[in-house]
């Protein structure tokens, strides 16, 4: 079929988009004399139905075995014209497109002669390459119906719920020993009579009894192989040392001699080495923190259900999935020691510490108390860690902190009606539904708002009293407010080890470290890597509503993929010519996807490309010293022919 090249060249006018700047007649006459060209046609819109007919007719009547279409960018219509070839019985990869619109007529519309000359040269280069094109076979994979979700926060949970309801098998992994992420530790939420843990419990309730969902806590990602529809994933389940027999009797906690700060309560309380991170944590099983455990075995001795096994080892788990959802969430910004007095005075706390203090299940059982005393003069400082407020702050707005600050100020007003509350802000952004009313209500409740531009100065006096000094932008005067509690409304930052996850799954990130979508507006929950989806705050700050929405959106995208029986991918991958391969294996080190393996053939060793793993970058081809490694669609001789055609007359 692809023997002696018989090339048809089809030149599109694109209305006046091309024909307005390129002399089509002159180009047609020029192209007729190019080697191997047996037909040249031009038409007003080659992508239209009659235009496509012209190509099909040419293929049949002139016995074409290669087609060159000179029109718009291949990103626009390469797919369309490949289908035309296929419908005419020609292999779709025997097409070469020439971009004479975006990269010629549109940018040279001021110089018709130059545009015409460039169009001729570009077509000449494409004809040269087309002569060397080969028929290629698309790679198809059967789609595995399982899904891996990384992260057990609200975004991951809502994805898991939606996918399991559609009948897909879901592996939900969570690095921590508890499910629920950041939301689980929030106190009362705005607009609803629910706490953060209630949202998590409701989602869990819809998830835990579903036999399609496998929740794996203490579990981390080790490696991901394969590609869209057919990922092979390795996980490691770190030991919890306590099994499901645990009945939360707390005998173990009583005897444990180790006491450390509880990170789940943001350091507000202490915990033992065997502990439950916070009240109502799921799964309701104690966990042993092996870093701090002294292996004294006291807990083992007292456990009435024999639930503790200190000899437990990490367990490797392998799963095969068709799609991966990354819902790894975020971390609250942690102020530096000394930043706004944080870490210097115990009266300076973060918004998340306040959430815990105001929570009835928290360390103070909901009483507003600092060092055992109820504060009365309270100053909130917003944009801590956001909007470039301090040198270490991130440049973005964290979206949820303004509303959360106001909500907490109103809760304090309920609990301590005579509290004096100031909210120092750069700008109040209560954009989410109902939040503007919250802002108005705060005003009515005599919560005072003051605007700063330069970061306020939190001065901790020797008698431990605090003054917050700043320049008030509205009244244009310096102000000093005495405070016995300063709350820093911290924003969100990417989770600590997100780089490890994104390197394993191969997803890009933006300048601040949040994961990057395939397209900010058009594909907000898809990663650029096929079969990988992104949900929740892992792509940037979101509130609870937005995170759950994103989880659902990712689930919907996943099910679009998984309901297909097979996926097809372009076969523009690397291939080895065994006879030329010297077995130097330079390509093995170059490949970013571990797609190249060594194969013993007779007494020689040769490289071999796994078509399921190769993504078609061609880096190995450029590194091959013997020319044995080639890339379909971009072989050395094909690219060289383009170079050659650009210069030979």
């Amino acid at each position, binding site marked *: 079929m692809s023997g002696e090249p018989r090339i048809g060249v089809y030149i599109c006018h694109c209305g006046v988009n091309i024909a307005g700047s390129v002399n089509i007649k002159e180009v047609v006459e020029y192209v007729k004399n190019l080697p191997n060209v047996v037909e040249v046609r031009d038409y007003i819109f080659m992508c239209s139905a009659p235009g496509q007919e012209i190509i099909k007719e040419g293929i049949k009547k002139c016995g074409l075995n290669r087609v060159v279409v000179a029109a718009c960018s291949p990103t626009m219509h390469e797919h369309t014209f490949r289908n035309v070839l296929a419908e005419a019985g020609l292999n779709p990869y025997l097409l070469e497109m020439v971009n004479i619109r975006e990269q010629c007529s549109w*940018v040279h519309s001021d110089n018709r002669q130059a545009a015409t000359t460039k169009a001729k040269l570009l077509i000449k280069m494409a004809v040269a390459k087309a002569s060397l094109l080969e028929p290629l076979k698309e790679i198809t994979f059967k789609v595995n119906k399982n899904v891996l979700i990384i992260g057990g926060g609200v975004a991951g949970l809502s994805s898991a719920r939606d996918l399991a309801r559609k009948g897909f098998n879901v592996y939900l992994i969570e690095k921590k020993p508890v499910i629920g992420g950041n939301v689980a530790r929030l106190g009362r939420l705005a607009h609803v009579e629910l706490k953060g843990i209630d949202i998590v419990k409701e989602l869990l309730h819809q998830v835990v009894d579903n036999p399609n969902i496998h929740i794996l806590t203490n579990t981390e990602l080790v490696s991901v192989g394969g590609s869209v529809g057919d990922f092979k994933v390795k996980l490691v389940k770190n030991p919890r040392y306590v099994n499901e027999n645990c009945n939360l009797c707390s005998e173990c906690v009583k005897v444990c001699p180790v006491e450390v700060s509880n990170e789940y309560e943001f350091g507000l309380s202490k915990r033992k080495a065997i502990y439950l991170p916070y009240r109502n944590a799921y799964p309701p099983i104690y966990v042993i923190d092996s870093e701090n455990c002294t292996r004294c075995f006291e807990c083992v001795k007292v456990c009435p259900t024999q639930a503790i096994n200190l000899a437990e080892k990490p367990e490797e788990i392998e799963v095969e999935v068709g799609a991966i959802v990354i819902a790894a969430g975020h971390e609250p910004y942690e102020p530096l020691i000394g930043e706004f007095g944080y870490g210097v005075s115990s009266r300076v706390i973060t918004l998340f510490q306040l959430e815990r203090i105001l929570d009835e299940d928290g360390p103070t059982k909901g009483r507003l108390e600092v060092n055992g005393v109820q504060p009365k003069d309270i100053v909130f400082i917003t944009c801590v860690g956001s909007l470039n407020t301090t040198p270490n702050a991130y440049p973005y707005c964290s979206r949820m902190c303004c509303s959360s600050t106001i909500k907490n100020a109103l809760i304090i007003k309920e609990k301590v009606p005579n509290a004096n509350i100031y909210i120092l802000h750069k700008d109040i952004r209560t954009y989410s539904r109902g939040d503007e009313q919250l802002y108005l209500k705060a005003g009515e409740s005599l919560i005072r708002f003051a605007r700063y531009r330069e970061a306020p100065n939190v001065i901790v006096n020797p008698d431990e009293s605090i003054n917050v000094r700043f320049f008030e932008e509205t009244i244009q005067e310096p102000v000093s407010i005495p405070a016995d509690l300063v709350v820093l409304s911290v924003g969100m930052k990417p989770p600590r080890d997100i780089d490890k996850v994104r390197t394993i799954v191969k997803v890009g990130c933006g300048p601040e470290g949040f994961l990057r979508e395939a397209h900010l507006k058009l594909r907000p929950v898809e990663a650029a890597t096929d079969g990988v989806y992104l949900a929740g705050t892992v792509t940037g700050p979101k509130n609870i509503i937005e995170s759950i929405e994103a989880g659902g959106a990712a689930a919907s995208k996943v099910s679009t993929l998984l309901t297909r029986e097979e996926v097809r991918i372009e076969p523009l991958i690397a291939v080895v010519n065994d006879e030329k391969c010297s077995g130097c294996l330079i390509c093995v080190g170059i490949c970013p996807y571990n797609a190249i393996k060594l194969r013993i053939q007779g007494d020689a060793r040769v490289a071999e490309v796994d078509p399921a793993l190769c*993504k078609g*970058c061609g880096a190995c081809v450029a590194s091959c010293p013997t020319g044995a490694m080639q890339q379909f669609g971009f072989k050395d001789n094909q690219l060289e022919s383009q170079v050659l055609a650009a*210069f030979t007359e």
Partner: protein
Amino acid sequence: MSQDFEPRIVVFACNWCSYAALDLAGTSRMKYPPNFLVIRVMCSGRVDPQFILEAFRRGADGVLVAGCHPGDCHYIEGNIKALRRMTLLKKVLKEFGIEEERFRLEWISASEADKFVRVANEMLEEIKRLGPLRIEEAYQHG
């Protein structure tokens, strides 16, 4: 140098960033000199230095390799592989007496059509100043 010298410059553009930037220049109706002929590759890491030597040998007055910014490569770090190769190639070109202004490696993201236009204008101006590449001469004197 002759006023009517029109250099011919080959551009190897990666499919994901730089080729898209060139398309964006078109859809934004920007203008740049018509001297640039684009060869599309999937990744700047696919560009074999041999192609560039071949282009100069065949009569190119300049070559531009354009890829995604470091950290943004669609194939993780193909652009870094290109950077390594092209750094070596620059030394080889110097040995051949090919002026360094004739070859550039640039990071041009999909949204940086204006950067391509700037680079194209700069390159064209520099190469026009240098005049046509006479490879035989360059080789003998280099």
